[in-house]
C-alpha cells in the first residue's frame, strides 16, 4: 500500500496559510494559558496535597467539597478518578498555612467524621496498618492463646492481621465482612471480635502526595530550565549538523509546536505536572526529529542541484519525505492514541500532548522559516541588497 507516490504538492505556495493557521492557534492558546482560566498547575509545581480516595459508594462531589471546606480548606479541587464504578475521587488542596507537611490528616479526619456511621469501636479496618491490627487482636485475644503462650499468640495475630490486609490490598478497600470471614486464617471468634470492636470505614486512602512550597518552586524552576535547555540543545545540534538557518527554522518550528499544544492542553483543562514536562520534552525531540528528516533531504537535494531556488528544493524534499512523515506520525499516533484511551487517568494528559503534538507537527513551519531567514540574511538577499 502506498499513499503518496510521486506527489508534487506545492507546500511552499500554501505556506502563508499554514503560518496564518498556526498564528491563530497560537494566539488562542496563549490567551488560554495567560488570561482565560490559566494553566491547571498540579501539586508538583503549585505545591499542595493530593489524595486519591476510594469510597464504598460514589460520594457526591459537592458534599465532599463542603466537608473539606468545613475543615478549613477553601480551595480544594475534587474530581472523579478511575473507571466508572470504581468510586474513586481525587482531592487536591493547596498548601495550607501551618500544614506545610500536607493536609492529609485534616481531610481524612474530616471525611471520617462525616462518613463514619457505625459506632463499633474506633478501629477502621480500611485505614489502619497490619501492626496496629495485630495489636488490637492481641489485646482482644479472641482465639484465647495468650494464657498459653504470649509469644505464640503475638505471632498468630500478626499472621491473621497480614492475611486481612492482604485481602484489602487488591481492591484497596474492604467492602463487606464476608471478605474477612472468607479468609481461612480468620477464625469465627476473630471475625466476631472484629465486628464488635472495629468497623469497615466508608473509604480508604489509595494514595497521598504532598509537595511542600519549597519543592514546588524548585520543580517549577527546573522544569522551565529543562525545556529551555533542550530547545537550545536542539538548536546547537542542528546548527552543528546543518547550518544556522536550518537551526533557526527548526527552533521556531518546535517552539511553535510546544506552544500550540500547551494552549490546547490548557483549554482542555488537563493538569500540568511532572509527566507533562516529560511529554513536552518528548514532543521537542519528536518535532525536531521530523524536521531533521526533511532538512536531511533538502541538504541532499541542494548538493545535487545547486542552481535550483531553495523554495523548489524544499518543496521537492517535503514531497519526497511526505510518505515517511505520514507513516511515522501514524504509527506514533496509534500508540499514543491507545495510551490516551486506555492508559488510565494518570497518563491521559501525557498522551494528549503527544497525540496532538504529533498530529499537528511542524515540518511545514520549519521550512518556511528557513526560507524567511534565507530571504533576510541569506546570500541571495545580500546580493539583492548590494544591487539595490
Amino acid at each position: 500500500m502506498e499513499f503518496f507516490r510521486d506527489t508534487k504538492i506545492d507546500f511552499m505556495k500554501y505556506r502563508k496559510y499554514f503560518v496564518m493557521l498556526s498564528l491563530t492557534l497560537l494566539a488562542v492558546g496563549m490567551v488560554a494559558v495567560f488570561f482565560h482560566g490559566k494553566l491547571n498547575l498540579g501539586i508538583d509545581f503549585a505545591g499542595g496535597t493530593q489524595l486519591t480516595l476510594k469510597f464504598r459508594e460514589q460520594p457526591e462531589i459537592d458534599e465532599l467539597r463542603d466537608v473539606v471546606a468545613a475543615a478549613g480548606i477553601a480551595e480544594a479541587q475534587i474530581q472523579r478518578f478511575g473507571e466508572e464504578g470504581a468510586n474513586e475521587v481525587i482531592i487536591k488542596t493547596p498548601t495550607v498555612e501551618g500544614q506545610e507537611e500536607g493536609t492529609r490528616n485534616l481531610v481524612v479526619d474530616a471525611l471520617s467524621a462525616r462518613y463514619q456511621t457505625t459506632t463499633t469501636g474506633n478501629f477502621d479496618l480500611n485505614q489502619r496498618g497490619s501492626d496496629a491490627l495485630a495489636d488490637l487482636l492481641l489485646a482482644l485475644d479472641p482465639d484465647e492463646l495468650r494464657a498459653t503462650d504470649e509469644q505464640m499468640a503475638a505471632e498468630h495475630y500478626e499472621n491473621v492481621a497480614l492475611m486481612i490486609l492482604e485481602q484489602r490490598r487488591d481492591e484497596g478497600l474492604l467492602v463487606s465482612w464476608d471478605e474477612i470471614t472468607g479468609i481461612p486464617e480468620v477464625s469465627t471468634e476473630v471475625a466476631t471480635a472484629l465486628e464488635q470492636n472495629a468497623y469497615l470505614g466508608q473509604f480508604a486512602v489509595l494514595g497521598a502526595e504532598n509537595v511542600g512550597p519549597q519543592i514546588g518552586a524548585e520543580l517549577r524552576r527546573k522544569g522551565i530550565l529543562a525545556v529551555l535547555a533542550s530547545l537550545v540543545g536542539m538548536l546547537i545540534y542542528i546548527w552543528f549538523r546543518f547550518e544556522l538557518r536550518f537551526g533557526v527554522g527548526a527552533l521556531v518550528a518546535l517552539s511553535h509546536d510546544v506552544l500550540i499544544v500547551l494552549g490546547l492542553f490548557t483549554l482542555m483543562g488537563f493538569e500540568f505536572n511532572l509527566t507533562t514536562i516529560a511529554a513536552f520534552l518528548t514532543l521537542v525531540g519528536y518535532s525536531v526529529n521530523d524536521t531533521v528528516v526533511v532538512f536531511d533531504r533538502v541538504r541532499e537535494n541542494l548538493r545535487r542541484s545547486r542552481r535550483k531556488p531553495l523554495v523548489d528544493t524544499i518543496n521537492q524534499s517535503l514531497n519526497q519525505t511526505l510518505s515517511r512523515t505520514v507513516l511515522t506520525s501514524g504509527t506514533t499516533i496509534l500508540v499514543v492514541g491507545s495510551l490516551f484511551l486506555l492508559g488510565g487517568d494518570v497518563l491521559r494528559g501525557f498522551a494528549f500532548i503527544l497525540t496532538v503534538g504529533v498530529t499537528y507537527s511542524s515540518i511545514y513551519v520549519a521550512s518556511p522559516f528557513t526560507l524567511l531567514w534565507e530571504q533576510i540574511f541569506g546570500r541571495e538577499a545580500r546580493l539583492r541588497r548590494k544591487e539595490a
Partner: protein
Amino acid sequence: MNRSLLWRGAIIVAVVVLAVFAAHPLAEKLKLGLDLRGGIHLVLQVEVEDAARSETAKDMDRLLQELQDAGVQANGSPTSSSSFEVNGIPTDRDGTIGEIVVQFLPGWDWSRRGETVVFEMAPANLNEIKNLAVVQALETIRNRIDEFGVAEPVIQRQGLEGTRIVVQLPGVDDPERVKKLIKNTAFLEFRLVEYPLGGGGVPTRAEIDAQHGGVLPDHLEVLTGTVRDRQGAAIGEQYYLVEKRPVITGRDLKSARPGLGEFNQPVVNFYLTHEGGKLFAEATAANVGRGLAIVLDGNVVSAPNIRTRIGDSGIIEGSFTRQEVEDLSTVLRSGALPAGITYLEERTVGPALGQDSIEAGLKAGLIGLALVVVTMLLVYKGTGINAVVALILDIVILFGALAYFKATLTLPGIAGIVLTIGMAVDANVLVFERIREELRHGRTVKSAIEAGFGKALSSVMDANITTLIAALFLFQFGTGPIRGFAVTLSIGIVASLFTAIFVSRWIFDLVLAGRKRVDRLSI
C-alpha cells in the same frame, strides 16, 4: 551462506539470547518503581540551623562558665544560630577571653565592639556542624528504618553537601506510622513529681494551682498526660506538677527493648549507661515513695511510685499499645536526632493504585503494538514482516536492558515503552521508503536495498540523536518516575537503531542470499 551473514546472525542471536536471559522471568527481574508497586517516597529536610543553634548555646554556656571560673561575671545572649554576644567583660580581660577561646572554643572568631564582645562561629566550623547533623540524622533514620524492617529501603542524602534526605520504602502498609517513626524526637526525661507526691496525676489543673496559691515556684512546672483506653484512644487528660530538672534523659540510655509488664501489658525495658545508672540510683534511693514522671516530648506517659532504689535498668510503662512500645524502643535505641526534621515532599502510593496503572499501561501497550504491526504489514506487505521482527526484537532487547541495568520501571516508564513501539518503526520506515524510491528509479532489488540503507542512514541517525538529546535533558531534570521515562525511551531508541539497521539489513540479506536474480520485492 557467506561468512558475513553468519557472523552477523551470530551477533544478533547472542544479543537476543542475552536479553531474554537477563529479563527472564520478567516478573522477578524487572524492578518496579514505587508508583507501580506501592510504597512511600519522602524528601525530608534536616533543620541544620537547629544543630548550629544548640551548639552555639552549648559553647556560650561553656564560655560563661570558664569566664566565671576566671573571676569574670558576664552575661551572654545568642544573636543568631551561629553567633552570640557577651556583655560585662572588662576591656583589660581580653587576654583571658583569648586564652579561653584558644583552649575551649577553637571554632569561634571573636571581636570587641565597645562594651560588647561578639562571637561568630568560624564558617568551616559551622559547615562541619551542619554536615555532621545531616550525617548523624541519616544514620539515625537508617537505624530506625532497619529496625522497622522494610525490604530494600533507600535512604540517601540528596547531593554531597545537601541538607535533604530521601527515603524510599516499598510496600509499607501504614505510611503515617513510618513518618512518625522517622521524625520522632522521642526526647525522654525522668522527672521527680511534686504533686501528687506519690505519683499518678490529678484530673484538673485547678487542684494543682490550689497547692501554691496559683504561683508556681521557679523549679517546678505543670505537665499533662493523656489517659487512654485499651485500644489506645484518648479519653481524658491528667495533670502533674513536676520538677523542671530531669534526673536523667534519653541520652543516658544504653539500650531499650519492648517487653511485657506484670499484667502482660506492653512496656519498654531500658538499660542505662554506667554514668546514667549512678545518677538514677542516687536519685531513686533518696526519693523512695515519691512519684517519678516519665516524660516523652513534654508529655507525661506515666508517673509511677518509686518503691525502691533503681539501678541501671528499669521499665517505662504507660497505656501503650504494642506498636507504640516497639516504635518507642526503636527510637530510643537509635539515638536522638541531632536536629528537627521537616517533610518537604511525600508520595505515598497504595498497591491497588499501582496495579491499576500497570494493567492500563499493559493494555494500551499491547493494543498499540497490534495496531502498529497491522499497519506495517498493510503498508509494506512482505517487507513489513521484516519491520515487525525488528520491532519485537527491539522490545525484547528493551526489557533485557532494563533488567540488566536494574533500571526501575515507573508509570511514565511504561508510557516510554509504549511510545518506543510507535517511534521505533520510524527507522524502518525511513529505510523502506528510500528503498521504494530507489526501486522506482529503476534499480534492481539488491542495489535498491543497498542504496536505501546507505542513504537513509544519516536521516535515521539524526532523527534518533535528537530524541536522545531530549531524553538526556529529561533525565537531568527528572525525579524518580520521570527518569524512568527517560531511561526506557533512550534504551528503546538505541535498541531500535540496532534492530532497524543491523537486524533488518541482515534479514534482507538472508532472504536474498543465494538467489542470483531477484526481480520483485514485496514492499
